[in-house]
């Protein structure tokens, strides 16, 4: 399968996969306001919650990356500028994912 077709399929697969996860995220974020720090840590330590959270982060950031890539390809013209914009976007997204995952590791182990 070509690069374009894979991009198209993954964009749709992640879209469907993150629908329930994003709704769950919104609910969890609202509830977190009235939850103490200790309770939040305990909540995050549960294997099911942890799995869903990591799956959500990977799926949502991946979906965002593919979406922003298409916007850059459509609206940033010029071979060099476009390549630079795409590289910068990939670096930023990957850094944010890394920060999220390292944070989770610290929360769970610490």
């Amino acid at each position: 399968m070509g690069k374009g077709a894979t991009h198209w399929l993954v964009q749709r697969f992640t879209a469907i996969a993150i629908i329930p996860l994003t709704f769950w995220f919104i609910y969890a974020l609202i509830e977190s306001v009235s939850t103490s720090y200790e309770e939040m840590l305990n909540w995050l330590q549960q294997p099911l919650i942890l799995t869903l959270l990591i799956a959500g982060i990977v799926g949502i950031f991946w979906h965002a990356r593919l979406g922003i890539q298409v916007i850059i390809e459509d609206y940033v013209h010029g071979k060099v500028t476009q390549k630079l914009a795409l590289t910068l976007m990939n670096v930023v997204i990957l850094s944010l994912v890394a920060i999220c995952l390292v944070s989770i590791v610290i929360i769970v182990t610490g």
Partner: protein
Amino acid sequence: MVGQKDLSRLVMEIGSEKVDVSTSNVLSFICKFNQKPVKIMEEQPTSPHLQIYRPQLTSILSISHRLAGLFLGTSGLLAFTFWIASMALGPDAYSYSVALFTSSLMQPILFLWTIAFYYHFSNGIRHLFWDLGWGFQLTTAYKTGYLAITNAIILSSLTWAYIIFSD
């Protein structure tokens, strides 16, 4: 009329001009013209130029889908990362970020995130149906467009009603 065997050497009279319409000449003519489209296709097709494209409900919904996605994918994900990193940094950092997100200054941004998400979600469902080949008829496209807007407003209202009344 000419028989099939004559096709290789065929001359037609168009007006006063004699044109060679033999198979090989026609093929080379087509190939000459085909070179240009092939060259164009090497470049990415360009999107409609928004400055000169007459706005219609469908085009506005389409660009809004991208804008909402871009808004969520940049500011939204940055804020989420900030929130989860603050939790890893300890109770003080976490209470600071909770205070920040619950401050009155942040409420309009939180509201924009909810409406952007519910719109991107509703219109995304519309896109998934299009991918299955359903809903391309103009009247259907308009109906589902209005449905996406309505759905986004309803879900945002329900979420904010829950936020306000669950306190």
